[in-house]
Every structure is written in structure tokens, then in C-alpha cells.
């Protein structure tokens, strides 16, 4: 699926963002609307390495808000997969205690849609 990529004003990344789903795009549009600088997937956090130092588990949050020093992960997954993502977030917080990260659920995005009258794909 190819998603539209508007000419974002508050985007602080270099390469044009390629969103994985519509909720990520809508989240980006809201941040942009409010003039909150944002980056898309700027950093991959290594969570696990094997004995040879090869990365076996990593996590790349969807957004980074540099003014807030906050990573935001948007998820549209069903509950069982969210649980796995939550586990990753816990691991990230353990490994990188100085990194601030928040998980935004599909329900959060829908709430934004209600508040800001967004149109979301079902």
C-alpha cells in the first residue's frame, strides 16, 4: 500500500518518511499541524545480541520528537501482538533507561481522530 506523503513542515528528517500504515501517517499529520518537530524512525535500538555480537533483536520506534526528547511507537496491532511490543518496550527501557518512549495504541489515534475530526481508514 502506498500512502500519500504531504509536504510536511515540522518534519526534521532527511529522507522522505515512508509510513507503514495510515495511523502512522495520521499521527504525523497531527504533529505537523501543531508544529511539533518530529522525525520518522531515526534510530534503531539493539535489544539482544548473540555471543558473537550479532543483533538478534532490535526495536525502531516510529517517531522521535526532538523538542520533547521522546520516542513514540504507534501500533495498530491486535492485542496479542501489542503484548509482544510492550515486552520490547520494557526491554528497551531496561537497556536504555535514559530513553523516553511511549506506545500509542490504535485507540489513542482514534481518539485523536475524534478530537481533531480526522478520517481514518478502517
Amino acid at each position, binding site marked *: 500500500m502506498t500512502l500519500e506523503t504531504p509536504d510536511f513542515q515540522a518534519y526534521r528528517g532527511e529522507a522522505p518518511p515512508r509510513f507503514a500504515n495510515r495511523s502512522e501517517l495520521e499521527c504525523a499529520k497531527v504533529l505537523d499541524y501543531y508544529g*511539533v518537530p518530529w522525525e520518522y524512525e531515526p534510530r534503531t535500538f539493539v535489544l539482544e545480541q548473540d555471543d558473537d555480537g550479532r543483533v538478534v533483536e532490535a526495536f525502531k520506534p516510529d517517531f522521535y520528537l526532538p523538542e*520533547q526528547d521522546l520516542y513514540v511507537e504507534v501500533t495498530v496491532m491486535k492485542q496479542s501482538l501489542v503484548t509482544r511490543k510492550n515486552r520490547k518496550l520494557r526491554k528497551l527501557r531496561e537497556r536504555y533507561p535514559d530513553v523516553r518512549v511511549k506506545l500509542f495504541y490504535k485507540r489513542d489515534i482514534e481518539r485523536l481522530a475524534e478530537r481533531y475530526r480526522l478520517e481514518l481508514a478502517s
Partner: protein
Amino acid sequence: MEELGREVVRDYDGREPLLVAPLKASVVFVADLSRAIPIPHALDFLELASYGADADTGGHARIRFLKDLDSEIAGRDVLIVEDVIDTGLTLNYLCKTLALRDPASLAAVTLLDRPYRRLVEDLPVRYVGFTVPDELFVGYGFDLAEQYRNLPDLHVLRPKS
């Protein structure tokens, strides 16, 4: 409301604060809060364009005032009166914009707060009525598609099961 009023009086006595309420949901709250603040103060209102109003223009859309303040705020103690703070995006924009006008101080009071949904943390939220769960509220100025604002009390709106 009386508790919030007392806290505002404690902090602003002798400073004649300006209560700034973003339209429309905070109208009922600011009306009650103002009457719970028995020290001299002024009221003003502003209105921000909702996201949907400019959504068709995609990424070019930026938040903007539909109605700006009538008052000059330079040198004044400004207290923003919010209905609810969740992500903090609206209040962050308001604070940044109003700070450019050199108020003596800038703080916020909110009837409802959802701090666990915050994307912007460094906000001057000084007074909080209630920290609430992630539910949709109507009544007491809160609407759903412009309905229910007139209900005298807050109600939680839940989808039919």
C-alpha cells in the same frame, strides 16, 4: 470548583490575572471558575481552528487562530483555562504563541487531565480539577459533534455493546 478557585486566589491575589479560555468546550468551566475566584480578574477568549477544518490541505495545514484575544497580554499574568489536557499539543502551541507576547507569567488550569497520554511534557499546568481515565466525556461544555454541551454535568460516553 471552590478548591480550584481558592488555589488561584492564593497564587494570584493582588495580581489581577487574565483568564484565557479557548472556545468552545471550556466555556462552562471558565464561567464557573471565574465565579469561584473572588479577586479582581479579567476574561478573554480565543478559538483555534480544529484539525479537520484544514485537513484537505494535508501537510500544509497548520494550526491557526480563528479568533485571537481581544486583550493585550504584555506584562499581565495569564492563566489559560482548558477543558481537558491529554497529548498537550494544543496547550503547547498556545503557550509558545502567547509567550511571544511577553506576559508577566503564563500558567494553565484544566478541568480534566490525562497525563498518561502526554506527548509534550514541559507544560505549565498549575491546577488540575480531575485526573480522568481514557474515556470520552460529554456535557458541561464537552461535545460530540456539537451535541450535549448543554448537559449540566459531565457524562462518560461509551459505545453500545
